[in-house]
C-alpha cells in the first residue's frame, strides 16, 4: 500500500515535470534566442536538432544592445507602476469586496452589478475617450496616469468577495461582541485569513498592469515613461525586427514575476483549514 502510493507519487512527479517542461519549452527557445545571434536562431530552426534549443556560440550581445537602448528604464517604470498598482489596488479591491460580502446596506446589489459590469467592458475599446480625459487632467506622462486604470479591478473584487463570503460569520460576530469595529474586523480577522485569495487578487492586478500595452502607448508616450512591453514592441520596426533583443527583453520581463512567484509560493501552501478556523 505505502509502496504503491510512493510509486504513484513518482509517476505524478514525472508527469508534472513533463507538463511543466512542455509549457516552458517555447520560453526556453526564447532564452536560447536571447543568448545567440539572430542568424544562428533562424539557421538552427530547421531541421530540428539539439542546436535548435542550445546556443552554439553564446553571446550576451543582445542583452547589451537592449540595455544600451534604455530598456533598464522601461523595466523600472513597469516595476514601479505594477508595484503601485498592487499596493493601491489590493487596498481598494479588498475593502470593496469586504463591503459587498459582509456589510448590509441598501443598494448593495446595484453596487455589485456596477463592479461586475466594470469588468465586462473591454478596456482597450474605451481607452481612447479615457485617454483624452486623462490628458485634460494633465495625467499624461505620469506614473499616476499609468497606475489609475489598474487599481479598481472588478475581477479582483469579484474573487475576494467570493472568498470573504466563505469566511464563517460567527468570527465577525464574536469580534463584534469583543468590541471590534468593521475596520478592525476587516483588518484583524478577514485579511489575515485571506492570504491565498489576496495572492490571487494580486495576480490579477499584476498581470493587467505588467501586460498593459495600448494604454501606456496612448497616455505615456514620453521616452522617460516607457514601459517594458512598449519598449519591446519598438524592437520590431518597419524593416524587420531585432529578434535577439526581443527575446532578451522577454527573458528579463519574465524574470521579475518568476522571482516574485517563487517567493509567494509559501502563501499558496498555507490553507484556511491549516490555520484552524474551519472544520
Amino acid at each position: 500500500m505505502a509502496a504503491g502510493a510512493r510509486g504513484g507519487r513518482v509517476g505524478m512527479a514525472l508527469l508534472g515535470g513533463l507538463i511543466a517542461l512542455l509549457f516552458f519549452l517555447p520560453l526556453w527557445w526564447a532564452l536560447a534566442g536571447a543568448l545567440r545571434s539572430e542568424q544562428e536562431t533562424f539557421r538552427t530552426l530547421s531541421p530540428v536538432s539539439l542546436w535548435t534549443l542550445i546556443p552554439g556560440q553564446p553571446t550576451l550581445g543582445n542583452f547589451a544592445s537592449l540595455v544600451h537602448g534604455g530598456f533598464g528604464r522601461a523595466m523600472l517604470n513597469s516595476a514601479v507602476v505594477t508595484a503601485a498598482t498592487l499596493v493601491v489596488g489590493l487596498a481598494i479591491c479588498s475593502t470593496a469586496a469586504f463591503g459587498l460580502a459582509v456589510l448590509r446596506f441598501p443598494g448593495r446589489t446595484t453596487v455589485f452589478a456596477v463592479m461586475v459590469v466594470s469588468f465586462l467592458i473591454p478596456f482597450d475599446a474605451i481607452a481612447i475617450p479615457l485617454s483624452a480625459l486623462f490628458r485634460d487632467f494633465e495625467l499624461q506622462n505620469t506614473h499616476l496616469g499609468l497606475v489609475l486604470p489598474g487599481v479598481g479591478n472588478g475581477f479582483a473584487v469579484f474573487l475576494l468577495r467570493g472568498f470573504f463570503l466563505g469566511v464563517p460569520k460567527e468570527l465577525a460576530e464574536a469580534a463584534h461582541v469583543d468590541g471590534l469595529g468593521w475596520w478592525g474586523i476587516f483588518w484583524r480577522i478577514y485579511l489575515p485569513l485571506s492570504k491565498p485569495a489576496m495572492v490571487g487578487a494580486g495576480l490579477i492586478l499584476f498581470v493587467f498592469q505588467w501586460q498593459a500595452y495600448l494604454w501606456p502607448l496612448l497616455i505615456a508616450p514620453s521616452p522617460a515613461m516607457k514601459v517594458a512591453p512598449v519598449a519591446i514592441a519598438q524592437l520590431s520596426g518597419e524593416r524587420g525586427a531585432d529578434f535577439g533583443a526581443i527575446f532578451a527583453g522577454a527573458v528579463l520581463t519574465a524574470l521579475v514575476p518568476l522571482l516574485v512567484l517563487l517567493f509567494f509560493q509559501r502563501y499558496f501552501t498555507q490553507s484556511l483549514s491549516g490555520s484552524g478556523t474551519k472544520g
Partner: protein
Amino acid sequence: MTTATPRTAVGRRGRFGDWPIAVTFLGPAVLAAVLLRLWPAARAVWDSLRSTPFGLAPTTWVGLDQYRWLFTDPAFLNSLKVTALFGIVVNPLQIAVALALAVLFNERIRGVGLMRTLVFLPVAIPQSVSAVIWAVAFRPDGPLNGVLALFGLGGLRYLTSPGQALASIVVVVSWIGVGYWMMFLIAGLKEIDPNLYDAAALDGAGRWARFRYVTVPQLRRQLAFVLVADTVSNLLLFAPVQILTKGGPDGSTDVLMNDIFERAYTEADVGAAAAATVVLTAVALAIVVVQFRLLSSGKD
C-alpha cells in the same frame, strides 16, 4: 440572516444598515469603476449613435442606423460567428486543463512549486513576445513541423490554413492562460479540509469519487470565479490574433474584439467601433447573467 446577527450589530444597523461605513469601504472602488470604466462606456454608447466620416469633426447624428449598418456588414457578422466558435472551444478546454493541472500540482511532489511557476510563466511575458515565439513555431518550415517530421509525420499548416488557424490560436491563448487560471484553482484546493478526503477514503471512495464528491463541490466558489473570469477574458481577447493573423486567413480568426480594434485604431471609425463595443459588452453581460443564474440555481 438577521436572526443570526448578534444584538450589537443589529443595534448599530438602522434603516440604512451599514450605509455610512459601506461608503468608506466601497467608495474608492465604485469611484474607480464609474470614472474609469462606466463613464467611458457611456461615452461609447453616445458615440455609437453618431457618425464620424473618417474621424472628421463635427459628427452627425445617425442613431440606430449605425447598428443597422453594422449588422449588415459581412465582416462584423463573421466576427460574431468566429467569436462564438472560439468561445465554445476555448472556455471548456482551458477550464478542464486548468483544473486537471491544479489537482496534479496540488499533490505533494518534489519541486512542485517550480513546476507551477513554469506553467504560469507564459502569462507574465508581453503578449507581443508570445506571439513572436508562436509565429516562428507555427511556420510551415518551423520547429513544430520539424518535430512531426522526426516521427515521420507530415506537416500541418497552422496559421496559414482557414481550417487550422483558429485551433492554433486556441493553443497559443491556452498556453498563455491555463497556468494563470490554474493558480486560482490551486488556491481553492488548498482551502479544502483534508479531513473530508480522509473521511471519504474511509468510506471506500476511490480517487475519482473523491474528486467528484469532495473536490468539485468544495471548489465551487473558485470554479465559479474561473468560469466567469475566463469566459469574459476570452471574449475580450485580441492581441495574439491581431499580431499572428490579423483575423485571417479568410476571416477565420477574426474575433469580435479584433474587429473592434481594427475599426477603432486602424480605421479611426469611432462610431462603428463604439457600436461594436456596445454589442460586445451586451453579449458579455448576457453570458455572465446566464452563468450567475446557473451557479445560484446549482447551489440549492
